[in-house]
């Protein structure tokens, strides 16, 4: 019984993340538009884009292998599975009968999605796809260790890498009260968020100038429902990274038991926290220019350094 409840809660939370994902993008676009004194598209625009793409036909490169069609599906599946590892509304109490995944598996699943997307980009055999894949993998391998270090820095006092348990232990464990290392790790996370969500100053989601794009470069040859899958995966990945930050650093307000009031409160808290991040991303996107690609490693090294210092402070 307990395990059925657990699975139900996990499914509901994952579904919530997938459904809310495009809305986060819509809000960021809206905030950017307002900061640039434009009216901007409706916040629901990403949903309309998805619906339109799903109705469309597909144009596929004639050099692509059969694997090309499977790539978007696998990328979406990997990202959604990663979303399933996150506590959103309810942080688990004690260990569940059926453990599922932890932060390491989450990061690894996102890496799997990135790997598959890069391979799909190389499949069509154009220079843009290859360039996008090469750059995305380069950024990815710089982000991943920093992200792992942030996780380790929190996990080393929490004694676990399971995000639900970590969220609960933030409340219960005295050692997990906010301290200097948390601040450093949180700052590292703020550096990593734009990189992981493909935003300025690392990448520019709006550009379609071939030489400046990373993530979009890999999507050039995808079209129709396939592109819809990848777009949804991108929205989901964005909200996954934001929720990961929430679960690691500020899981306050999560429901301990399943009652309508507690869940409503948790939802409100979650949406409020998301909104803060959305404003942060919107403001950063509007106030900075995209970095030259070879400046990006230095920027990410800042994140890596902070994450490492945070871990060092914890251990020493």
């Amino acid at each position: 019984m307990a395990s059925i409840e657990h699975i139900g809660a996990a499914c509901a939370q994952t579904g919530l993340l997938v459904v809310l994902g495009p809305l986060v993008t819509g809000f960021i676009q809206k905030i950017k538009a307002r900061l640039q004194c434009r009216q901007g598209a409706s916040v629901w625009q990403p949903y309309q884009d998805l619906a339109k793409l799903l109705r469309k036909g597909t144009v596929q490169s004639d050099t692509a292998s059969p694997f090309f069609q499977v790539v978007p599906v696998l990328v979406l599946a990997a990202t959604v599975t990663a979303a399933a590892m996150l506590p959103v509304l309810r942080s688990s109490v004690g260990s569940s009968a059926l453990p599922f995944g932890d932060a390491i598996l989450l990061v690894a699943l996102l890496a799997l999605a990135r790997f598959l997307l890069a391979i799909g980009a190389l499949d069509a055999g154009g220079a843009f796809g290859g360039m996008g894949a090469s750059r995305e993998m380069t950024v990815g391998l710089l982000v991943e260790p920093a992200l792992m270090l942030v996780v380790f820095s929190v996990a080393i006092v929490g004694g676990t890498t399971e995000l639900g348990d970590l969220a609960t232990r933030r409340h219960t464990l005295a050692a997990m009260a906010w301290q200097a290392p948390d601040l450093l790790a949180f700052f590292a996370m703020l550096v990593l968020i734009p990189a992981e969500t493909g935003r300025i100053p690392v990448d520019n989601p709006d550009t379609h100038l071939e030489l400046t794009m990373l993530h979009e470069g890999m999507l050039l040859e995808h079209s129709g429902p396939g592109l819809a899958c990848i777009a949804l995966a991108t929205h989901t990945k964005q909200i996954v990274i934001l929720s990961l930050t929430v679960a690691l650093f500020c899981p306050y307000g999560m429901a301990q038991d399943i009652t309508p009031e507690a869940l409503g409160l948790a939802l409100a808290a979650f949406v409020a926290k998301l909104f803060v991040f959305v404003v942060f991303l919107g403001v950063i996107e509007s106030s900075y220019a995209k970095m030259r690609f070879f400046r990006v490693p230095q920027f990410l090294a800042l994140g890596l350094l902070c994450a490492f210092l945070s871990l060092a402070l914890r251990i020493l």
Partner: protein
Amino acid sequence: MATSVRASGDGDKLTAHPLVDKGAGPVVRCAVWLGHWLTLAGALAGAAVALRVLGGSAPVHVALPKLFPFAEMSLHVDGLSAFFLLVVCVVAVAASVYGPSYLGAHAKAPLVQTLAFMVFVPCMALVCCAGDALTFLLAWEGMTLASYVLVVSDTADAEKTRAGLLYLIMAHAGTAALLAVFLTLTVHAQAFDFPALRDAAGRLDGSTRTVLFMLALLGFGAKAGVVPLHIWLPAAHPAAPSHVSALMSGAMLKVAIYGIFRFGFALLASTTGPLPPSWGWTVLFLGTVSAVFGVLLALQQHDLKRLLAYHSVENIGIILIGAGLAMLLGGRPGTERLATLALAASLLHTLNHAAFKGLLFLGAGSVVSRTFTRNMEEFGGLARRMPWTAWLFLLGSVAISALPPLNGFVSEWMTFQALVLGGARMGGASGLLAGIAASMLALTGGLAAACFAKAFGVTFLGRPRSAHAEHATESPAPMIAGMLLLAGACVALGLVPGYAMRLLDRPTAEVMGGLSASAVVAARGPLVLSAGGGPAGLEATSISVTLAASVFLLIAVAVWFVRSWPRKAPRRLAPTWTCGMTPTSRFDYTATAFAKPLRLIFAAVYRPHRAIAREPGPSPYVPRRLVYSGEVVDLTETVFYARFKHAVTAVSQAIRARSTGRIHGYIAYVLATLVIVLLLFGKG
């Protein structure tokens, strides 16, 4: 305007010859098949023995016929031996299934190679099973010589002869170190068998044992390809026939790892108390350096097999990280569970690496046997021509990049958990070092993923970039069967790791004296991975890769259903958009281009060197030809070995300059030496 861009890399072409060797008559072909089948039968028998011992039956002890008057020789298969025997046999089975077809298509000297193969595999198995120093050293030497024959037999080209020579020198330098260790122990023990040696080692003092362990580490490290002793590996592995490369990388390196385990945890370990911390730290440090350095260099390789060889250096590093941590934590109160976790991670990665690296080398062999080159820049578009090879190679790539849900992820997850929890338990500077190792391991994973996105993408996707790649066909069934075997192992070890833990029970219990791997890692059922031993009173992490994989599959099927729902709008094919030009294979991203950002970011390690030669045309603005070449260096080779070589050369030249060639001079040298020796040692 004719602009030719020649990519860097060692694109040494294999001579293209007809698919079936002209010289290989039916008799030769039968002999090749027979030889491989015999090896297959032997490997299956070995695996059966190994599984029986791992399953819990008593250790197997076999007395060998007395070859030398001064020593008894024997085989002794305990848990640790059985596990490594299993690793060797798994790769050997796949290689023997794969081998005959490969040799039939490719070999210059199939008979010699079959014979050497038949010596090589049993020798590896014998090293793992040896019960005494003499058997161990004889089998070790047999293994080295047989693999040397396999390395140099494929072609007569000078580079491969040099690779073989380098291998032989490094291997024998290692063997010399081992010989010193064994001789020291046998002198004290007055016997050759391992229990006697262990007793003798127990009577030695701590510092002597540490010196002996470092010597053994040097000897085995040279064979395992630990940085900086790895330089022979990327030269020798690609030179051998591909199924032998799979064996050398998947099994032979593991035999050296077995040596480190046998010496570090059993022969030289004191019977009471933990191992000295210096052992664990050395192994952990070497492992971390090898992991990062190996994968960094792998990224810049454009020879497919050389790339895989550098990845072996990386994976040996990951294995050693686990082993080093187990040495540090083992035998100390309160960290037994963590030590067992680290050891299990290390052993599991040994088996995992054998499976996926064997698979990748066999896949590379299929490609090489169809395109007659190892240069990745000349592949492309093979996925549509060799679908089985391509998808199996992709599976291996996902596994080696430590991506879920395959086996590479499972062992890396365990290593991460052990490092993080171990770091928390050790605290202070030691904990920080463990943290550094964890971050390096994370970096390694990202680099490996980038490297295999390149290796798979450039080799199998896009358009063919050479005539051979364009006309490539799928490999014959036995070769695919060999790959399928190892691919099955990769999937099984990833999805049901709890069952693999049962194979580790016996070795971990023997080494750690008590706790078995299942009790720690599979404590909550075979489908759940748990990491025990965190801070007191807190439940540690558990995950289920099986469940995650099922959810992944379910979602993928559901999405696929939605995606391929019939629509009014048609699905059509069109050429890739290339800014309005007619697409050709020249538009594809090459391996050199793919790795370029990393070459710039990690320039401090690579020391990249590039040269552009222009051949001027009629106008200074339009060159007729543009030749680009670039290469990266292996830092150990330039910093360490080049200086060593210079020193040796300088000494030799000094000696040569003082060699007059007249007999009087030499007599004077002899007399001078005699006088000095008498002055030094004459008193006693």
